[in-house]
């Protein structure tokens, strides 16, 4: 009896053990993967590790744009216990109106949507407030938010990002692939309380590349401040400014007005007027500043010299049946440097005639007009330069005085860099470093002879000292420049209006220039809106600050001759270039006569004369200068080609002689 029972018991235990064994085989072998997956789904959570967008630095290492982590709130409308209560609670915690929020949630509910952002990028206080609420029907997601700590500073260069942190303007847009990081992934084993135990799989996030721009925040700030002040004070419409290193092509500042705060998101239906980078996107007829290219081409291709007499024809010239006036009355036969300094339209037309169509086109093209400068910024405009086949009979004359072409402020700065660096076209550089890798400086391309560049420097210095650019004269540094005032063509009316683009392009110091500044104020009115009155003072303030920041030693007296400035200020007001608007220029004629008389009188004065250094080596020049107690400012290397003042000119006490050496 007992044995029988024991047998039964053993059989039952065996069956039970077999069942357990087969269940174990099923769990561990047959359905191993299936149950492993189910276990992982319960015990493991997948996390996306956000990759911070690359930080943008200024050239001195200050942060211009950076991303920080932030929180966003979302719900599943289908799983809300009570939509009205949820809207009430979230509205209170997040400072939102209840009714619109409730309407949004109800709409999502009706649309059977399982996901709805309640508020994105909430503040830390709001996040803390929500985390204290012990409810499980709303969720907080980690996101990244872009910040521009300097507000409007360099807004047009930096651009902005959209709500998905994708660049929609400026360098943020153009260099999006580099700035955007690659998010990482992580699978974490968690316990019942959702505390992380261990990482199962970890792909680290790859942050976006940090960029160091060539922008100097201090120069940029002053540039924006002065440009805004100029536009407002002259009731102008807009303005742009570029500060550039003429040797490396580094853009030290690029300002555009009106401006905007990139921290503010673009609202739907907003007209992006403030977001247009005028310095590269809005071309304009340059006016007299374009005479720089005209004269450079003439010095390079003809026998024109600064002393060559130019017949300005009393300020009137007829070209192909069309009359071109000097805007300020005109003058007679004057040296080329005077015609340039006084911004004579007739003189420029005469010089252009010497250059000819083909050479004019060739040189204007060489200076970089009609082509993009190649900055990593979107919406760069190449300007307009028609091929000679499409030129009319009056085109050469028009282009000689800066009409029938359109240029951007950046192109003007680039062109004047050619004069400043000794005759080579530079490629502008905006990104100094990508991560730790320095962006190499593009090789310079020689486009004009060094002696032409040197001659143009002194022609442009003459503009500042004796011409239309007196308000750009720096205190403590030498410099050169050119004013320009072009009438704005009214497309609707079909003729030039009485609004002007007032420009000034200059460089400093005269020997080994360190900066080039191009300023344009668009939509000015009246004589006070000409380039010499609107843009030249901006140049002075910005260039002074830039030279101070760059620690450039002073090479001129601190205080300029006030008499000279006051005298030239009158001329400055009359300096415009256009085809249509004649005007009186009695003051200018008197000025020229005075200067001519002064020059003749100086030549006849007894006393020491400037020695002739031409053809001498630098060592010989310095030795001779030392023996005579003369200060020489050498520029370049090799043999002395040009000098200023010219040989035989009266040598004033303390005067320094600039000598250009070339090989």
């Amino acid at each position, binding site marked *: 009896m007992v044995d029988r029972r024991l047998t039964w018991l053993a059989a039952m235990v065996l069956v039970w053990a077999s069942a357990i064994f087969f269940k174990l085989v099923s769990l561990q072998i047959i359905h191993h993967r299936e149950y492993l997956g189910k276990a992982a789904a319960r015990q493991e959570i997948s996390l996306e590790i956000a990759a*911070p967008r690359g930080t943008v630095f200024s050239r001195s290492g*200050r*942060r211009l744009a*950076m*991303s*920080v*982590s932030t929180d966003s709130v979302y719900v599943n409308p289908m799983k809300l216990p009570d939509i009205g209560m949820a809207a009430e609670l979230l509205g209170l915690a997040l400072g939102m109106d209840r009714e619109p929020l409730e309407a949004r949630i109800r709409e999502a509910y009706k649309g059977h949507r399982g996901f709805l952002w309640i508020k994105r990028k909430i503040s830390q206080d709001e996040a803390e407030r929500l985390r204290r609420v012990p409810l499980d029907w709303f969720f907080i997601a980690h996101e990244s938010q872009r*910040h521009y*700590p*300097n*507000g*409007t*500073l360099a807004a047009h260069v930096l651009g902005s990002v959209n709500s998905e942190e994708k660049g929609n303007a400026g360098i943020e847009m153009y260099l999006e692939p580099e700035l955007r990081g690659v998010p990482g992934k992580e699978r*974490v*084993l968690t316990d019942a309380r959702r*505390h*992380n*135990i*261990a*990482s199962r799989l970890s792909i680290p996030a790859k942050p976006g590349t940090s960029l160091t721009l060539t922008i100097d*925040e*201090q120069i*940029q*700030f002053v540039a924006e*401040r002065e440009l805004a002040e100029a536009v407002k004070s002259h009731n102008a419409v807009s303005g742009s400014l570029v500060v550039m290193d003429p040797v490396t092509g580094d853009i030290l500042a690029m300002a555009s007005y009106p401006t905007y705060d990139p921290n503010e998101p673009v609202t739907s239906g907003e007209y992006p007027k403030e977001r247009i980078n005028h310095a590269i996107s809005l071309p304009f007829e340059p006016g007299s500043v374009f005479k720089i290219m005209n004269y450079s081409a003439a010095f390079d291709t003809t026998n024109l010299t600064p002393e060559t007499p130019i017949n300005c024809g009393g300020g009137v010239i007829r070209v192909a049946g069309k009359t071109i006036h000097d805007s300020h009355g005109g003058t007679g036969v004057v040296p080329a440097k005077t015609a340039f300094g006084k911004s004579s339209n007739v003189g420029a037309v005469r010089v252009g005639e010497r250059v000819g169509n083909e050479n004019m086109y060739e040189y204007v093209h060489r200076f970089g007009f009609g082509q993009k400068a190649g900055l990593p910024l979107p919406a760069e405009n190449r300007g307009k330069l028609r091929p000679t086949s499409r030129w009319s009979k009056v085109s050469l004359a028009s282009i000689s005085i800066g009409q029938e072409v359109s240029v951007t402020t950046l192109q003007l700065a680039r062109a004047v860099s050619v004069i400043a660096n000794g005759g080579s076209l530079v490629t502008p550089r905006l990104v100094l470093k990508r991560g730790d890798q320095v962006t190499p400086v593009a090789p310079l391309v020689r486009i004009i002879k060094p002696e032409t560049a040197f001659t143009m420097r002194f022609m442009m210095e003459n503009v500042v000292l004796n011409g239309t650019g007196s308000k750009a004269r720096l205190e*403590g540094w030498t410099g050169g420049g050119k004013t320009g005032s072009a009438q704005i063509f009214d497309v609707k009316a079909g003729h030039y209006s009485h609004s002007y683009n007032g420009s000034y392009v200059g460089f400093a110091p005269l020997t080994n220039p360190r900066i080039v500044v191009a300023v344009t104020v668009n939509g000015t009115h009246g004589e006070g809106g000409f380039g010499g009155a609107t843009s030249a003072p901006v140049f002075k303030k910005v260039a002074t*600050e830039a*030279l*101070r920041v760059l*620690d*450039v*030693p*002073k090479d001129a007296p601190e205080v300029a001759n006030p008499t000279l400035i006051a005298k030239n200020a009158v001329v400055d007001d009359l300096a415009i270039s256009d085809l249509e608007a004649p005007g009186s220029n009695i003051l200018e004629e008197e000025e020229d006569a005075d200067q001519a008389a002064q020059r003749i009188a100086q030549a006849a004065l007894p006393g020491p004369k400037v020695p002739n250094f031409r053809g001498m080596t630098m060592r010989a020049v310095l030795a001779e200068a030392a023996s005579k107690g003369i200060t020489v400012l050498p520029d370049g290397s090799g043999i002395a080609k040009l000098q200023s003042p010219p040989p035989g000119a009266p040598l004033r006490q303390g005067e320094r002689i600039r000598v250009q050496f070339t090989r």
Partner: protein
Amino acid sequence: MATLPAFFRRTEAPARPVHAPETTRAAKPRADRDPYALRALPHEDILLFCKKIDNTRLVREPDVQARGACWSVIGVAGMVLLIVTSASVPYVGSTLAGYKLETLRTEERRLIDERRNLDLEEAELLSPQRLDVIAKDKNLVPPATGQVVRLDGKDSAVAMAKPE
């Protein structure tokens, strides 16, 4: 008065065989119950009491074999416990280390975020616009060229004179 063994014997009494004679106890004719009287509880008539037993005079005889066996069992159990503990130590250790590692990772991310927030705050404080406003309030002007001497710069002579 019945004792517990008596009670159990009574309740566990084997069933009477079919052919067994009638029980000696004659079935009492059931008296008519008072319809208003409460029904008796089962075993209501049984009374229980505690019997005090004094075993202090009993002396346990030493069992050497049993003691040895006991120590053997304790030893084996200890060994098993030690082996099980040793085997589970790495697992428990790795789990605890995992908790610590994940906590540290979370802390690292929090500190990185905090550092970025501080960097942002610093950048906002050093903004040229803000500094310009402060400088104007205090009637400060930009330094002239050459007026600023950077002690950490390449001018080693000046850098050496920098006070500690």
